[in-house]
């Protein structure tokens, strides 16, 4: 077939990219080869717009065993234990078919983690929908939540934390990010780098069908009116088969059969074979007639580009084929030797003994395009909001408005659809700042949380970037964990747009600065560009997934109040920053001004000293102050507890709204038993930590002297209504 411009365009390639392909091949590609180039050179696989910028992220640290570049990041948590984790987006497929899109997103990220030898121990997700009034939102929400649950519940890995946000910016382009966390022996980690010539290349897992052909290029293009045409590429997840694949792989990993292993994710057989060969500096020859197919008459093109789920590629050591095959047969999975490693440095594709395609591996990998795209800096806005210009509002009304809003409503409608307890190591479930998962059979645990702040990032990408790292860090601190490392999912609009590219660049600057300061390196991640429709780009939405270590397990603090008459202190300074706050958004629909300042030094000191208090067992409960400010934080500590709180009015600030709803950073509300108060105070004073006594817990009411009195039952009701009525 003659390759026409139309065909090139259909493959999502630019004409100059095609010229480049011809130069690398020193001839014209055939259709199969073109398809392979398009799969490897699209944004999703090649990171061509992001690669230059990602380099600046800090990725090293004593705790890091493997940073970005492998299937997932690996960190050391002491003894022989390693934690392997990564987050990934499945935005476009989830918008087209929410259930399957979300489900296969979960399945894909799980494979990234267990290919490296880890048993997955926790799932998290960050999901973002359009405005609740938008006609599509409800069914997208329903579909995504049941898809996430459907996959995680069936495979038997607890879904323990996440975040759910609504914002009109996602009306035509929702975000579905899934994170998986696994545990492995640090001496038994498996990598994707091929080694040795003439080694068997083995295909295991499900059969290959026509699903998802060109999925990766779909994830690298904007939606437009014609997106409907792309619909038949939807992939269906099969968590049952994945469970078998998981157990079979872990069983095979017990001995030394595997040289390297790689899941077939985006761009399926193409990307897995190319990546393995490329990392090993080798070639690979595949006999495509051997690929187990689900449909009749599948062509080499279809086999190489199919994104059928639940498949892996393994390079086996000599003589291990038979014992490995037995394991996969036990689990009723396909196991077929489909090729071998070679020293040609080419990807050679045979079909019926004929060479159908032959491409130098480096043309697909290291020589893939890299773009230094044009970008512009965001000008910091000078907009200030003067409360005096706004209609006066009662504190109680403002609080109720926030707590009953979709973004702040209780999420148990969602979390009750996820099995959070399977594996019996979930020490703290959803509903608090971070989930806690015990390391099986051990007296230690990890804490995990995912966070994002699209509004802050939109307003000021640098500050926003810093803020999400800090918030994530805080969420681990409040449950008593030492933050170790993060993974990140960078959801942005069209990188060919310089404003979007600017948001990307500057968000990364912010993330970098915070990670460096906090010694909180990035060990894995994912970039998702082209989120938007017809030139309307989503707000920049980087999502941070963090993992922390609890060295010695204790009964979790949780963030709900534990006792009557205990003291409440607020760690960190309150300035009353209301621009970009929930208070203004929910009550006045104002979305203006700068996000709050980040002082990394304070972040670090406040967090580390709170951790000391927790370690010394001086704290009853603690909660970071984030979206919504102090009063929302205290309200959240009241939910699910049997207690209310009595708060003092601030002495200095004039405006109560600024004090109670301001979103200044680096703050925590902490509940301390009266008897421990002086001990805690001493530690804070000795370390120069700013704190204020803000009140105490009490029975039945949330109260501010002379300003507000609301029963805790009513507060709880207000917070619980929205999802159930939606």
């Amino acid at each position, binding site marked *: 077939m003659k390759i026409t411009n139309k065909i090139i365009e259909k493959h999502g390639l630019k004409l100059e990219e095609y010229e480049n392909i011809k130069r690398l091949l020193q001839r014209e590609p055939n259709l199969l080869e073109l398809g392979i180039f398009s799969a490897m050179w699209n944004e999703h696989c090649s990171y061509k717009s992001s690669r230059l910028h990602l380099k600046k992220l800090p990725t090293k640290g004593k705790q890091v065993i493997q940073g970005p570049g492998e299937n997932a990041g690996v960190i050391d948590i002491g003894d022989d234990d390693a934690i392997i984790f990564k987050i990934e987006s499945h935005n476009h497929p989830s918008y*087209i078919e929410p*259930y399957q899109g979300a489900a296969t997103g979960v399945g894909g990220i799980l494979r990234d983690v267990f290919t490296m030898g880890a048993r997955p121990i926790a799932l998290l997700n960050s999901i973002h929908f359009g405005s609740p009034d938008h006609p599509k939102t409800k069914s997208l929400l329903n579909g995504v939540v049941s898809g996430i649950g459907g996959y995680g519940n069936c495979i038997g890995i607890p879904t323990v934390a996440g975040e759910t946000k609504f914002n009109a910016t996602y009306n035509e382009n929702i975000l579905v990010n899934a994170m998986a966390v696994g545990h492995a022996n640090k001496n038994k980690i498996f990598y994707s780098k091929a080694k040795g010539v003439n080694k068997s290349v083995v295909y295991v897992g*499900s059969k290959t069908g026509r*699903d998802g052909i060109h999925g990766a290029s779909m994830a690298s293009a904007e939606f437009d009116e014609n997106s409907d045409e792309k619909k038949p590429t*939807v992939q*269906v997840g*099969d968590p049952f*088969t994945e469970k078998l694949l998981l157990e079979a792989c872990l069983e095979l990993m017990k001995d030394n059969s595997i040289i390297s292993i790689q899941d077939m994710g985006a761009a399926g057989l193409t990307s897995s074979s190319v990546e393995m060969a490329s990392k090993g500096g080798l070639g690979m020859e595949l006999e495509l007639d051997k690929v187990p197919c*689900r449909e009749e008459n599948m062509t080499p093109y279809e086999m190489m580009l199919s994104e059928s789920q639940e498949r892996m590629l393994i390079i086996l050591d000599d003589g291990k084929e038979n014992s490995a095959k037995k394991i996969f047969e036990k689990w*009723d999975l396909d196991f077929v030797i489909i090729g071998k490693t070679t020293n040609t440095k080419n990807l050679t594709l045979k079909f019926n003994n004929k060479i159908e395609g032959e491409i130098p591996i480096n043309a697909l990998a290291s020589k893939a395009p890299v773009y230094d795209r044009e970008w512009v800096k965001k000008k910091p806005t000078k907009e200030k909001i003067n409360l005096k210009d706004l209609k006066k509002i009662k504190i109680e009304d403002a609080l109720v408005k926030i707590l009953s809003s979709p973004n702040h409503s209780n999420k148990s409608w969602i979390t009750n659809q996820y099995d959070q307890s399977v594996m019996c190591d979930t020490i703290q479930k959803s509903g608090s700042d971070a989930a806690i998962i015990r390391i099986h059979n051990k007296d230690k645990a990890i804490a995990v949380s995912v966070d994002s702040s699209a509004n802050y990032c939109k307003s000021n990408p640098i500050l926003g970037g810093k803020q999400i790292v800090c918030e994530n860090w805080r969420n681990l601190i409040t449950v008593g964990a030492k933050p170790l490392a993060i993974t990140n999912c960078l959801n942005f609009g069209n990188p060919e747009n310089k404003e979007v590219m600017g948001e990307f660049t500057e968000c990364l600057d912010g993330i970098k600065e915070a990670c460096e300061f906090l010694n909180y390196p990035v060990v894995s991640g994912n970039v998702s560009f082209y989120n938007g429709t017809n030139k309307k780009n989503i707000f920049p939405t980087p999502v941070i997934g963090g993992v922390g270590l609890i060295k010695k397990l204790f009964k979790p603090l949780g963030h709900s109040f534990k006792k009557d008459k205990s003291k409440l202190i607020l760690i960190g300074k309150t300035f009353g920053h209301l621009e970009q706050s929930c208070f203004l958004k929910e009550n006045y629909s104002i979305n203006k001004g700068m996000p709050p300042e980040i002082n990394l030094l304070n972040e670090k000191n406040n967090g580390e000293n709170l951790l000391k208090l927790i370690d010394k067992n001086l704290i009853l409960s603690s909660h970071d102050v984030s979206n919504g400010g102090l009063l929302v934080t205290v309200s959240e500590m009241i939910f699910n507890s049997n207690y209310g709180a009595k708060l003092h009015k601030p002495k200095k600030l004039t405006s109560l709204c600024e004090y109670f709803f301001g979103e200044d950073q680096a703050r925590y509300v902490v509940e301390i038993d009266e008897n421990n108060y002086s001990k805690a105070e001493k530690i804070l004073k000795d370390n120069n930590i700013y704190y204020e006594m803000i009140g105490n817990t009490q029975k039945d009411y949330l109260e501010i002297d002379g300003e507000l009195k609301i029963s805790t039952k009513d507060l709880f009701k207000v917070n619980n209504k929205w999802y159930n009525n939606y």
Partner: protein
Amino acid sequence: MKFSVTVTLKKDVLDPQGKVVENTLMNMGMKDLRNIRQGKYFQIEVDENDQSLAEKKIDLMCKKLLVNLIIEDYKINKI
């Protein structure tokens, strides 16, 4: 008027359920089984005596709720 609606997965869409059922039946000794695909079935009764109007209504129900048009096909029959 009463109708039946059968909903099946589109041809190239993976049917994990049908596959497991097929394997199980084979393992149980049903060797002549060549292929099985699983779908959904609805019996729907509507208060409408004009068949073509009734069918239109059923069709709307399918499109709006019963069928996931992205991965499923459907057929309406009078019963």
